[in-house]
């Protein structure tokens, strides 16, 4: 009996500490809005599950662009990309510039792709996107 009690307490304590080291969960509203932006603007090329199209369009699953540096990621979306190697592969299609999206939409869609398709990375805020846009020509 005492042993079970001990186990339960330990398990609870363990879960609590584990929860603390994880990044804060992304608010549902941000994910929902990010998905909406993704479905409208990104899905046709990168596909529903972010898996991309061989030789044409890269995957968004665990690439350095998606889960790495925020500035680089936001700039891909603002300026588009063409003829650049992604994790050792080249792609035929172009990524059109999406500079017409608002700071909010870019923050939400980048946060969405960084936390979907098996990715896990920190959120972006509209203020961060605004700052990156300001220094991007």
């Amino acid at each position, binding site marked *: 009996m005492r042993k079970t009690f001990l186990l339960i307490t330990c398990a609870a*304590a*363990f879960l609590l500490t584990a929860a603390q080291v994880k990044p804060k969960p992304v608010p549902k509203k941000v994910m929902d809005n990010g998905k909406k932006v993704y479905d409208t603007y990104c899905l046709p090329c990168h*596909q529903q*599950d972010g898996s991309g199209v*061989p030789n044409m369009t890269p995957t968004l699953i665990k690439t350095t662009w998606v889960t790495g540096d925020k500035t680089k990621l936001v700039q891909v979306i603002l300026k588009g990309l*063409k003829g650049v190697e992604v994790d050792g592969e080249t792609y035929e299609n172009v990524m059109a510039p999406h500079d017409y999206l608002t700071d909010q939409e870019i923050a939400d869609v980048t946060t969405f792709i960084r936390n979907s398709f098996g990715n896990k990375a920190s959120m972006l805020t509209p203020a961060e996107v605004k700052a990156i846009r300001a220094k991007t020509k």
Partner: protein
Amino acid sequence: MKWICKMLPLVLLAGTAYGNDTTHIKPKIRKAPRIEENGGITLPDGFKATVFADTVGRARHLVTTSTGDVYIMLFRLKNGKGILRLRDTNNDGVADQSTTFGNYAGTGITIKDGYLYASSNKEIFRYKLNDKQEVINPDQPERIVTGLIDRGTHNTKSLVLDNTGNIYVNIGAPSNACQVEDRKKGSPSPDPCPLLDSVGGVWQFKADQPDQGYHNGVRFAMGIRNIVGLDWNKTSNSLFAMQHGRDNLNTLFPEMYNEDESAELPAEELFEIKKGDDFGWPYCYFDWQQDKKVLAPEYGGDKKKQDRCADKKKPAYAFPGHWAPNALLFYTGNQFPERYKNGAFIAFHGSWNRAPKPQAGYFVVFLPFKDGKPNGKYEIFADGFAGESREPAKATYRPCGLAQGPDGSLYISEDKKGRIWKVSYTKK
């Protein structure tokens, strides 16, 4: 209390690790490998396929010799080489010898009058064959054409020859619909489209003159977005080709086209191409449901209006949208049943631009022909390439090339894993 909590998982872990060392653990049962009938594809009754070769690289177009060898063009260099020759010495339907050559990758490859012709995305080369149909000098091809435009998108240079010493090569437009910024919503498409004098058509060159280019090539036909599959029809003595139709009607014009319309439109068109033809890209697209060429939304179209598209050349046949026809072959062999003779096989690589609607294609179809014209409806000939999922990244195979062997068998290549099938008719 706290330290017990910290230690407990370790103790438990040690326990499981120890447990693994004991003989209590169940032996893993190995599943017997699934025997793939016909190399994983389905075929009509009476046909069988062998896996002629596997994992050869990203196999694009392929061609057979009169001795039964198969030359394959690779999309990316493999061990530094772009052309692969396979040979089946014991005639069991499985290649048992291979050699490679060519320090460039590409898509186009064909044989005519004792020469092998192959293309990178910028140039066309040819190699003389000996009487065993082997390349005599693999390291020193003649460069026949150079300087063709390659801007990444739609850059492959498929080719075919006629019977009078001419090469026909596709020069695709590096663009979806001639927008200033490709595929960007709201970016305008200039009128006239400035791309059309150097891309977006089929060019004709002499088969035997070195170092030709735009200056001495002939723009044979225009208004073609991109072609990957093309072939010479011996009955009509004319060029046929499959266009990859435009994309993104819904993403670029969401107020005009819904997702269903955008998935089905425009058609993937089969063209019969005569000198001087204009098929209308980027101003027009073919709506297979209305059976007419309509004005593209970039140029003022409203889904119905025809305007300048009324006199653009219509397709010889139209398939639903985005299937990505990557190979066309007129079957002239004697092995398959009579109804296949002179008809067209078309390999559809499979769509990506139907998302979020389900993708389609990923099969080889047969289109019956009579007197050099399509005669009846297409039928699916070989299917099952995609496996569980018709999604481009998940599909197991994506058919890309077709060739006819000297015995009348049909070879199919695919560029994902690099499998080559040899399809034969076995019913007596």
